[in-house]
């Protein structure tokens, strides 16, 4: 477990930290909440370089040498799993961002349905279809479901947890500000910890 983030090594002035945000099996609400940081995003942009993000970057391949990676969403399919492993290999500090990454949350409710992903697909795409029922199957294009939806820390090592559904912009800022200064986030009290 690495702790807080220190300044990047290198030249005379402090280099901007390389920040990535990732969207796995979640509703994007955590990223919407991130956008609710509003004008603080300008302060953040002075301190970090966003190198990968569904809301702030067009890069399709997760880059190397990432300092901080916020991960929204649970791990539900083979794409989620591959990206989780890749981001772990290429990031110094990984943060479970929101209740889905932290504990599975709503996406993990399918674990209650049946042990088999096929049964889940049958229910969603066949039994409940009004017309043109068919399985969304296209090998190599549509990722296969994993047997169970898992929280991020069940598949890779996680350095920090930021709960909330979604974490409010205030909570995200209170988490990131100390982290960017190289201090541990103050994870105590309802303002920082409450699930839901």
């Amino acid at each position: 477990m690495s702790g807080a983030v220190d300044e990047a090594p290198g030249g005379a002035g402090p280099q901007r930290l390389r920040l990535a945000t990732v969207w796995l099996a979640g509703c994007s609400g955590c990223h919407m909440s991130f956008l609710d940081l509003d004008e603080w995003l300008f302060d953040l942009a002075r301190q970090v370089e966003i190198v990968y993000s569904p809301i702030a970057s067009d890069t399709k391949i997760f880059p190397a040498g990432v300092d901080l990676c916020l991960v929204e969403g649970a791990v539900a399919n083979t794409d989620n799993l591959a990206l989780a492993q890749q981001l772990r290999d290429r990031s110094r500090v990984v943060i479970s961002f929101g209740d889905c990454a932290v504990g599975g949350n709503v996406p993990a409710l399918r674990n209650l349905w049946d042990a088999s992903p096929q049964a889940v697909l049958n229910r969603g795409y066949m039994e409940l279809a009004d017309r043109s029922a068919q399985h969304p199957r296209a090998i190599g294009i549509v990722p296969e479901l994993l047997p169970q939806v898992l929280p991020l820390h069940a598949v890779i090592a996680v350095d920090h947890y930021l709960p909330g559904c979604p974490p409010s912009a205030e909570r995200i800022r209170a988490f990131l500000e100390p982290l960017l200064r190289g201090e541990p986030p103050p994870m105590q009290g309802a303002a920082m910890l409450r699930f839901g």
Partner: protein
Amino acid sequence: MSVLTLWVDGAAVAVPAGASLLEASRAANVEVPTLCHLDGLAPVGACRLCLVEVDLPGDGSPTRLVPACSTAAGEGLVVRTATVQLQRFRRMAVELLFAEGNHVCAFCVANGACELQDAAVAVGMDHSRFPFQYPRRHVDASHPHFVIDHHRCILCTRCVRVCDEIEGAHVWDVANRGSHCQIIAGLDQPWGTVEACTSCGKCVDVCPTGALAHNDDTTAEKRAARERPALLRSARERQRWHNQGGPP
């Protein structure tokens, strides 16, 4: 009335004989976290959140871990309520509760008014280190006014106790063992078919989570009334009727 003197986190405190360690802690202005305990109901020590360390006076025996709610205060006991070990155990207990059931705060009727959610904050839990079990439980919505969602039940047995001890109907009980343990209505019948139920709603009032709710409650709409057993008990036993302006 005989009085016992004991030590709670280094402070001497005097309590009447028969008081629990939880009451002694409160008398010392020490807050011990609880979940299954509810003032006005008999203690059961089910949740293990109120574990405290106790040294018996002068016998040199090893420190014992006991639930404060269901352990009687004793003369000369040395009680510690917030050691590093206890904080670790309490967090572990809450993490296990989250992993054992299907607790999804985001769309729970009790979101924002849930004692399990509050307990997670109190013990500093930012995630559960234990693998989630995703048990297949069910929802019984057969009652005309109320619903029980077993997914969100932590088996605190407050509903069982309030129905038995305060309402006197004993609709609820606990069936099965281990991970199959569950609250049942009547003889494991749909709640709405149990004739003993008076529909008083006390079980809904005291439930710490979203397991018991009014059937028109949706996300974050549950309003619990967890002080009612204590009010009813003081009314019956001490003739203090709070709603008529009596002394508290």
